[in-house]
């Protein structure tokens, strides 16, 4: 009834923009509904044609309207108002697609969010109003009881001129200025100077010019289908990409001096900004979402098996990984190879105890710790990832395999077919290993079609238990960590995580997948067929630089997607 599902899987795999689909797995489950195994952007592989990037063509792809995320909201209000209360943390969570919190196509504004914005701006304005003197020197006089209303209004006007351009990240149009002054006047009828200026602050922080990254454009000579993003827009694109926040005064100065116009200008600023500490928080943020370790903080483990896994451990495991990736990007040779194979990590005292390190660090601060290179190899052996992709007491080779397929190979396995009853627990022998419990997936042809791509990757990590720590034995028997990578450019057998991660480090598909994730994060959307020029440029540069991660990030700012927008008449294209 079925073709040999394994070979069906193999035949279906082909490179297309670095994206692969395992949709052929569905040949084993003909009742699977349409759409299973589709690519993350909802298209089937046949719909995503590589396209051609010809010399001189500019293909920016879509530029959906980008709303500030909670992360960006926090940072922007910190930089705009000096607010450190992290008001974004109290906003509703973002809809997440493709793994990141900033996919503009899926962010919605619910009633809950609208109310939360209103509440947040009230607190922010309340805190800002006593500090008006830092914006305008007339504040003290205008705030004094019995102050002259005409002078107070002039002071409000000066405040709008000082605050507005920073809040809107560009010069105010005369009409915008006039509307805010009208609000002040209207509010002044019922409120004092502070109250009325507070109303202006609230209104500006609720306005689209603050909450969304609106851009003006310039025509491009000889190319009516595209527009160049203007300097103010480029400044915001740079600062939100590299810092998750509004431009700093230096960047605004560069715009005003007319020195943020060309791609080379953008690159020069990007290089300056990359070395700023704020970039580190963005790199951490990117990795938190790419590696899906945000939920690690609250995970539980079986207290009988792992009595030392307390609620304090989860956050520490996440921080361990965040420190590791930050060091890879900023502290060393900074390559993808490092990320995937470096035999070190970061721990503090409690983690050293948890990991059983003798002569490890003490105290609360995280320090670099060299690890046994026969056991540990880069980010995929980080306990945060391995424990999150596990249950309370057991490893979970399926979750681990799906994670690597999705996050490092950009391949989207379809869901299990309907009606499947997972039989992992029906093995009568309580001493069965996890591999044995999963054996039916390789024996039953209906399961094997897809699972041949999944478990053999996850099983290579069987030396790492449910808490992500090393184990030589499982149920008294030596761990079998043999595995296999199916259907990639580094296909083959592996024995253990070291061999698997070293293979992945040599894979061009992995390199392109890492680049693709940065592309999605940088542009706040999934890739489309039109992004062929951007992705080719990035992939080329990343490869030529030997997988240099800094180069990857900086090259994002040099793509058509970053520097241009489609002209409105072209926007109707799919």
């Amino acid at each position, binding site marked *: 009834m079925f073709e040999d599902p394994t070979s069906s899987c193999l035949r279906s795999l082909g490179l297309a923009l670095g994206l692969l689909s395992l949709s052929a797995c569905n040949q084993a489950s003909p009742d699977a509904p349409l759409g299973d195994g589709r690519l993350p952007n909802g298209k089937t592989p046949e719909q995503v044609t590589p396209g051609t990037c010809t010399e001189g063509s500019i293909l920016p792809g879509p530029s959906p309207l980008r709303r500030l995320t909670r992360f960006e909201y926090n940072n922007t209000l910190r930089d705009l108002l000096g607010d450190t209360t992290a008001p974004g943390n109290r906003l509703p969570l973002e809809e997440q697609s493709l793994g990141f919190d900033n996919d503009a196509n899926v962010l919605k504004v619910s009633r809950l969010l*609208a109310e939360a914005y209103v509440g947040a701006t009230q607190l922010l304005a309340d805190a800002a109003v006593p500090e008006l003197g830092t914006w305008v020197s007339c504040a003290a006089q205008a705030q004094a009881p019995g102050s002259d209303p005409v002078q107070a209004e002039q002071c409000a006007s000066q405040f709008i001129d000082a605050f507005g351009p920073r809040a809107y990240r560009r010069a105010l149009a005369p009409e915008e200025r006039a509307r805010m002054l009208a609000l002040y006047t209207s509010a002044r009828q019922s409120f004092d100077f502070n109250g009325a200026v507070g109303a202006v602050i609230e209104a500006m922080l609720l306005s689209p010019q603050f909450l969304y990254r609106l851009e003006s454009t310039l025509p491009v000579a000889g190319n009516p289908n595209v527009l160049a993003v203007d300097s103010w827009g480029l400044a915001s694109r740079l600062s939100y990409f590299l810092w998750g926040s509004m431009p700093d005064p230096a960047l605004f100065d560069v715009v005003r001096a007319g020195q943020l116009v060309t791609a080379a200008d953008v690159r020069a600023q990007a290089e300056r900004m990359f070395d700023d500490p704020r970039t580190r928080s963005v790199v951490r943020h990117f990795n938190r979402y790419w590696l899906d370790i945000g939920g690690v903080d609250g995970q539980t483990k079986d207290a009988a098996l792992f009595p030392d896994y307390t609620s304090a451990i989860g956050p520490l495991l996440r921080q361990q990984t965040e420190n590791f990736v930050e060091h890879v990007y900023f502290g060393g040779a900074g390559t993808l190879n490092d990320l995937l194979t470096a035999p070190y990590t970061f721990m503090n005292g409690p983690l050293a105890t948890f990991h059983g390190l003798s002569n490890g660090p003490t105290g609360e601060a995280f320090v670099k710790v060299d690890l046994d290179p026969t056991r540990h190899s880069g980010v995929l052996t980080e306990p945060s990832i391995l424990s999150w992709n596990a249950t309370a007491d057991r490893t979970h080779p399926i979750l681990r395999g799906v994670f690597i397929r999705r996050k490092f190979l950009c391949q989207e396995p379809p869901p299990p077919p309907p009606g499947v009853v997972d039989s992992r627990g029906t093995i009568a022998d309580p001493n069965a290993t996890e591999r044995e419990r999963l054996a039916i997936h390789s024996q039953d042809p209906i399961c094997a079609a897809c699972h041949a791509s999944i478990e053999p990757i996850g099983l290579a990590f069987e030396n790492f238990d449910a808490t992500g720590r090393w184990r030589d034995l499982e149920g008294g028997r030596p761990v079998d960590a043999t595995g296999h990578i199916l259907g990639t450019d580094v296909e083959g057998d592996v024995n253990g995580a070291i061999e698997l991660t070293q293979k992945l480090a040599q894979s061009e598909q992995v390199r392109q997948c890492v680049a693709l994730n940065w592309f999605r994060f940088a542009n706040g959307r999934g890739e489309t067929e039109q992004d062929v020029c951007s992705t080719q440029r990035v992939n080329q540069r990343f490869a030529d630089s030997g997988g240099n991660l800094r180069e990857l990030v900086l090259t994002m700012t040099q793509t058509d997607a970053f520097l241009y927008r489609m002209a409105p008449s072209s*926007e109707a294209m799919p």
Partner: protein
Amino acid sequence: MRIHQPFSRRSLLATAGAATLALPWLEALSGQRIAKAQAATPIKRFLVFFWPGGVIKDQFWPTGGDTGFELPYILKPMEAFRDRLLLLDGLDLKPMPDGVGQEHAKGMGALLTGRALGPGEFAFFNGGSADFAQGPSVDHVIGQHIGAQNKFKTLEYGVLWPTYGSGPTPQNIINYSAAGQPAQPMRDPYQAFMRVFAGVGGTASEADAFALRNKKTQLVLDAAAKEFEAVSAVVGMEDRARLQEHLARLQEVGASLGAGSGSGESCKVPTGITSADQINYETGGDGSHQTIETSTSNRMPIIGKQMMDMAVMSLACDLTRVATVQWTDAASRASFPWLNLHENHHFYQHDGGFQQQPCADICKFFMEQLAYLCTQLSLVKEGDKTLLDSTTILVASEISDPPSHDYRRAPFMLVGDAGGAFKTGGRHLKYDALPHNNLLVSLMNAYGVPGETFGEERYCTGPLTGLI
């Protein structure tokens, strides 16, 4: 002492390090009676009570006759309310097989919308992806109809939501305000409290200050609306649509400013509401249970109690007439340490191999919570009746059978007859594989919304028989 206006929120919220937030003014307000509302037509309320993962059918559906049956293990906690039960046995979530993505998500998407999930970008932990449901949920449709004069048309209270550490996805959302517009539940009790009960009760001067604050908010919202209109005029079509949606939500907030802030003879501002991260994860915060492990899941009973207390009072104060209490989410990663269940819920459903008794115990725990909710509703007096008398609770889960995710014979139950809109009386109605869309139609009709279909028409075969 500052009063409970938004002004004071900052000082309250900034004290994140405080143990239980000491709020003297709230203590003073508890027990304060609000002026009795002028009774016109009897108010009907609609509640949704959701728990994930289905039931063990042999321990949920009674055997024997259609009435006078013994409540099985899972439903035993509801003994005190058996006369208000209407068990709906034999309803299928027909959209599920037609949906895209994994089973849990399909169930979640279909449950209150009656629609199949379509293709989309939201990837699931175990493969596949889908989009949000493309239609409103029945609670939102009802709320739009009966909640016009309330501050909130609906309220969604989440307990340990989300369990995957990410935002709304088709796997963790049951409420939708419109096609593709998830209405995510409130996830922190204290923030829920500050949102829902702002301006409720209080002295005359507090009420004046609150009104003044609302006056400013109205000016602010009007000004922001002008900015939205100005910007909308110069951006492209797609961007304009987004901005207009955003503006519509802001305008809803503006419209709600004039709604009454709490009325009802039994309206009492809930006390002791805390932020989730203030709740002790070793013992559940009130020493109510001891476990052998520390786990943030330990917070579940306390968060649940606080959210249910607020749901009850938001109805009693007529801040809304439609509310949802959503316990965790589908394929939940929450565990139940106080039940000595240290793996996560999904593990017992099938991820670690199906284990029947843990699943049954988890379902029974949720039914105990439902009983608490019913008790609290029954303690709210309204004339010579109680709040429970005017309420119907739709009790539901996104699948029927934990290990197989079967969509057939989903565990639907109604508790309470909303002032006679249904004929409850402890009946076990048996249907022959009817679409649950029919139930959604009947619910909608019971609250005065006309129509013969709900969700996708192809699944509907008319209102559900036997309910009245």
